[in-house]
Structures are given as structure tokens and as C-alpha cells.
């Protein structure tokens, strides 16, 4: 039986979530009742709320507590992930505003929905029971479906929303089915109790069988959410069809939450079955890296190309979890954070080209960028080289750490395959650099982005270089989370 103890002092450990929920409600009311002239402040209030939430989460780093009858956990992993989620979300919203303004999509519900999905991610990151993890996942996903559909006049966005909705619902269904099996055999929703059940030496063969049966469904559900091959079919369509600002949001922060879900369920909960799920991950990882690298070669739409690039990056992340050692998990977390930093800058570079009545989403839109705006061409160059894995950028070190761990655990063939496909994928990253620097067209490119967007994008680009100069510090930080 569950034990329902409630202590008011526990609320302090959930302060970031509570504050964000409170702020969302207040900002929604604010937006409803103020005059048209004041509505632009909703955006600033959103950023302020996220900033304060990030500060509160940062203050809780180092605290360890399991509260609300064991359904909510606060540890260094959770707090650090929350800080990164909020930080990346703030950057993403700066880019978002320029895009929405350029295309007359600026409605304040957008920011409310974005905050709501961030709240869901924070709950997921701290979930310590199947119930909290599921609820966090759904808060996040439901807000994201609506976020895509905010561009309600675009047929492609509606189609993307529908596809994301159907595939997301299947993923939740599969995950839930797995959860019900795990609950049935272990008799508890609590991650700690599931863990102690799975590690007991008295497990019969039938119990192990049912546990594995549930485990497969959990892995499929997580793979759907991450977009790993063969559960990737929604990724390119949704990325291409969504408004670019939503694509950027989808491809960045929810990945942290999905990785947190993976860590909570499979490492904290079923860590003793690591050798079972590592085999599944190996297949997912190699297929993702291969398909992601090969199919991206033929794309002309840059959002679709970045979708396949995401798939191949996710493959690398999963490789880190295959290793089954703490250093490998740390390398995977480092890879996710590095990937999100690069992805934000890549989508930021696309968004910066957008202006009134002009939607930049083709690779050819980058033609001649180096002549008209050398600085933003340089940032895109850094991003593309980093994604291709060229030293000294962050993308190189994140790949290096993963491959080091993979080789150290004896999976040499996996590492060789990953490197070969990484080299193949360098082709399409370099293709964009070629388009920017060597393709001559008389087309005028106007970069009309506001100052805040330009400054943040520049900082984002520089971070890719700076973090790449001291990778070991970040790597140690990632490893220390486990």
C-alpha cells in the first residue's frame, strides 16, 4: 500500500515547479485582462518567469530529497537538468519571438503553451514514480501538439500536428502498457521499489520474463519519443511541417526530458536489466546513426535535413547508454547537452534569415550568405563543423567521449560503424558551408532580426567554441550527475 504522508516543509523542494505553475496562471490572467498595448509584455514576463525558475532550480543543486510519498525526487541530476532545460528554453524563446513576428503568428498563447510544456519536462525530470513520469510526459506532449497547431492557417503545420499527435499517442500507449506490466509484476509504482524488486536474486524465470516483456514496451515508447530508428518516421515530417520556431523547440529541450525519462525508468528503475536493454539500444543506435546519416544526404529542405541529423545524433546518445558504465552515461548526457546547444544555433541561423513574407527553409536560401552577412555565415559555419565533429568544437569532444567509452567497453565494431557514418554525414554539413561561401547568386539576403536575437545567436555560436575549449570540465560535471 502507498503511504500518504504529507509534510508542508517538503514543498520547498518542488519550489521551481510550483513557482512556474503559479507564474503560468498569473501570466495567463495578465494576458487576458490587459489592453492590446500591454500584451507585448507577456513575452517579457515569460522570460522573467523562466529566469526566476532557473535561479530557484539552480539554488536547489546539491540538495537530495524524495518527497510527496516517494513520487518526486530531487537530486543533482534532476536539478542540473532543470537548469539546462530552462536555460535552453530561454534562448529558444528569444529566437521564437523574431520568427513569430516575421510571420504574423505572434499570439501570446504560444508562450503560455511553451511554459506549460517546460513544466511538464520539469515534472518528468523529477519523476520518481511511474505515475509522475507519465503525467509529466503528457503535460509536455499535449502542450507541444497544441504548439504546432498554433500556426492554424498553414496546412502543413496542421498535418504535422496531426502526425505528431497520432504517433505521440501511440508512444504513450506503448509506454503505458509497459508500465502496467512492470507494475503488475513488481506490485509498485515507485521507482525505488521497482529497482529493489528487479535486483532481488530470488526472481523466478517467469517473473524475469514478464519484467522483460514490460521492458521492451518501455524501450519502444522511449525510442518513439526520442525519434530513434525504426520509430523515427514522424520526425522528418513533423520537423518540416511545423513552424520553424516550434521545430527548434521540439528538437531541443524535450530531448533532455526524454533522456531523463530514460535514466529514471531504465537506469534508476531497471538498472539490473541493463544487459537486456543495452542489446535493444545497440540495434536502435546503429540503425539511427546509419539511416540518419544516409537519408540526410538527399534532402533539399534544411529542416528535413536537420531532422535526419537529429536522428543520427540520437543514435550516438544511445551508444553512450549501451556501455552500461557511469562514464558512458555521463558521455551520453554531455552529448545531449552539446547537441542541443548546436541545434539551437542551427535553427537560430535559419530563423535569422526569416523576414516579413519570406520563409527560409531551403538549403538554397543560404546561398551567398557569406557576402551579405559574414558574421552569421561564420556562426553557421561553426555550427555545421561542430555537428560534423571537427575539432576543436564541442561536437567533436562529445563524439570523442562517447566513442572512448564504447571502445573501452569492448564494442569496437560499433565504434567503427559510428565513425564511418559520422564521416559520411560530414558531407551534408559541408554542403551547407559550400552553399554559403562558394555559391554565387545576385539574391539579396536581408538580415532584419532585432538586436536581442543577434546578440543571443552570437553568444550561442561562441559558446559552441568556448565549451569546446574546456570539454573535460563539462564531461566531469556530466559524470558527477550519476
Amino acid at each position, binding site marked *: 500500500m502507498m503511504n500518504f504522508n504529507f509534510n508542508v516543509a517538503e514543498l520547498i523542494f518542488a519550489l521551481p515547479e510550483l513557482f512556474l505553475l503559479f507564474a503560468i496562471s498569473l501570466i495567463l490572467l495578465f494576458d487576458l485582462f490587459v489592453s492590446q498595448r500591454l500584451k507585448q509584455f507577456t513575452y517579457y514576463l515569460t522570460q522573467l518567469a523562466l529566469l526566476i525558475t532557473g535561479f530557484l532550480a539552480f539554488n536547489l543543486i546539491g540538495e537530495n530529497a524524495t518527497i510527496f510519498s516517494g513520487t518526486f525526487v530531487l537530486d543533482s541530476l534532476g536539478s542540473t537538468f532543470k537548469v539546462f532545460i530552462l536555460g535552453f528554453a530561454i534562448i529558444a524563446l528569444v529566437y521564437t519571438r523574431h520568427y513569430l513576428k516575421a510571420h504574423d503568428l505572434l499570439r501570446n498563447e504560444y508562450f503560455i503553451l511553451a511554459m506549460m510544456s517546460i513544466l511538464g519536462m520539469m515534472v518528468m525530470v523529477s519523476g520518481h514514480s511511474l505515475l509522475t513520469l507519465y503525467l509529466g510526459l503528457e503535460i509536455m506532449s499535449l502542450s507541444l501538439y497544441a504548439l504546432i497547431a498554433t500556426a492554424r492557417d498553414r496546412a502543413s503545420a496542421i498535418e504535422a500536428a496531426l502526425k505528431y499527435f497520432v504517433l505521440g499517442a501511440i508512444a504513450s500507449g506503448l509506454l503505458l502498457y509497459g508500465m502496467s506490466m512492470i507494475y503488475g509484476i513488481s506490485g509498485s509504482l515507485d521507482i525505488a521499489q521497482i529497482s529493489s524488486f528487479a535486483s532481488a536474486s530470488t526472481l523466478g524465470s517467469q517473473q524475469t520474463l514478464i519484467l522483460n516483456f514490460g521492458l521492451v514496451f518501455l524501450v519502444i515508447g522511449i525510442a518513439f519519443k526520442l525519434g530513434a530508428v525504426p520509430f523515427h*518516421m514522424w520526425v522528418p515530417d513533423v520537423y518540416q511541417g511545423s513552424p520553424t520556431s516550434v521545430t527548434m523547440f521540439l528538437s531541443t529541450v524535450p530531448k533532455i526530458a526524454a533522456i531523463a525519462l530514460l535514466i529514471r525508468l531504465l537506469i534508476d528503475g531497471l538498472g539490473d536489466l541493463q544487459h537486456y536493454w543495452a542489446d535493444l539500444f545497440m540495434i536502435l543506435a546503429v540503425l539511427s546513426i546509419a539511416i540518419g546519416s544516409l537519408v540526410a544526404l538527399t534532402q533539399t529542405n534544411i529542416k528535413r535535413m536537420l531532422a535526419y541529423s537529429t536522428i543520427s545524433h540520437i543514435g550516438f546518445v544511445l551508444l553512450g547508454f549501451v556501455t552500461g558504465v557511469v562514464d558512458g552515461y555521463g558521455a551520453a548526457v554531455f552529448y545531449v547537452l552539446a547537441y542541443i546547444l548546436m541545434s539551437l544555433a542551427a535553427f537560430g541561423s535559419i530563423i535569422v534569415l526569416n523576414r516579413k513574407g519570406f520563409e527560409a527553409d531551403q538549403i538554397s536560401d543560404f546561398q551567398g550568405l557569406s557576402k551579405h552577412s559574414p558574421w552569421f555565415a561564420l556562426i553557421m559555419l561553426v555550427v555545421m563543423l561542430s555537428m560534423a565533429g571537427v575539432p576543436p568544437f564541442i561536437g567533436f569532444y562529445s563524439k570523442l567521449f562517447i566513442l572512448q567509452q564504447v571502445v573501452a567497453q569492448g564494442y569496437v565494431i560499433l565504434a567503427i560503424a559510428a565513425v564511418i557514418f559520422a564521416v559520411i554525414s560530414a558531407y551534408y554539413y559541408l554542403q551547407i558551408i559550400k552553399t554559403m561561401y562558394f555559391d554565387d547568386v545576385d539574391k539579396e539576403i536581408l538580415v532584419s532580426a532585432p538586436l536581442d536575437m543577434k546578440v543571443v545567436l552570437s553568444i550561442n555560436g561562441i559558446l559552441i567554441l568556448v565549451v569546446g575549449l574546456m570539454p573535460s570540465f563539462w564531461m566531469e560535471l556530466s559524470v558527477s550527475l550519476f
Partner: protein
Amino acid sequence: MIALSDYLILSSIVFCIGLAGIFINRTNIIMLLMCVELILAAVNTNFIAFSYYGGDLAGQIFVFFILTVAAAEVAIGLAILTLMFRSRGSIDIDVTNTLKG
């Protein structure tokens, strides 16, 4: 007396019907929503059966949450459906092919 395994077999059959329906169905989007509901119903059956036979109430509480979330999910699905009908004048799956794949 109905055994636990009977419930599990029932729920797995319902689950498979729902999953197959999503992949086989090529006509109507409302059918997709119904299949999603079937999957969730199968999960609910599982949770209640395990909860009853295991003597643990937590599973039944989980079901309340799943029901609520399913209602919210369908609300959003129908909203997207309405938008789709407005932009295309049809809710057939066949017309959802502007994006390749």
C-alpha cells in the same frame, strides 16, 4: 472465478486491435482517435486487474489519471481535426500527404 490471466489476455487482445487499427486504417482520422482510446482502455484493464489481484490501490489511482489524460488528449485531437477540416474540407487520411513520407 475469473483469473488474472483472463483479464490480461483480454487486455492484450484489445491492445492489439487498437494498434493494428492505427496502422491498417487508411480512411478516417476519427477512427485513429478511437484506436488510441482502445489502447488506453487495454492499459486501464491491465492496471485494474493487477491492482485488484495484487491488493494494491495505486494501480486504480493510476487509472483515474489515465482517464483524465485520455479525455484531454482526445480534446486536442478533435481540435486539430477541426483545423484540418477547415483547411482542407475533408478529414480523410489520404489528403494528409503534403509532407512526403
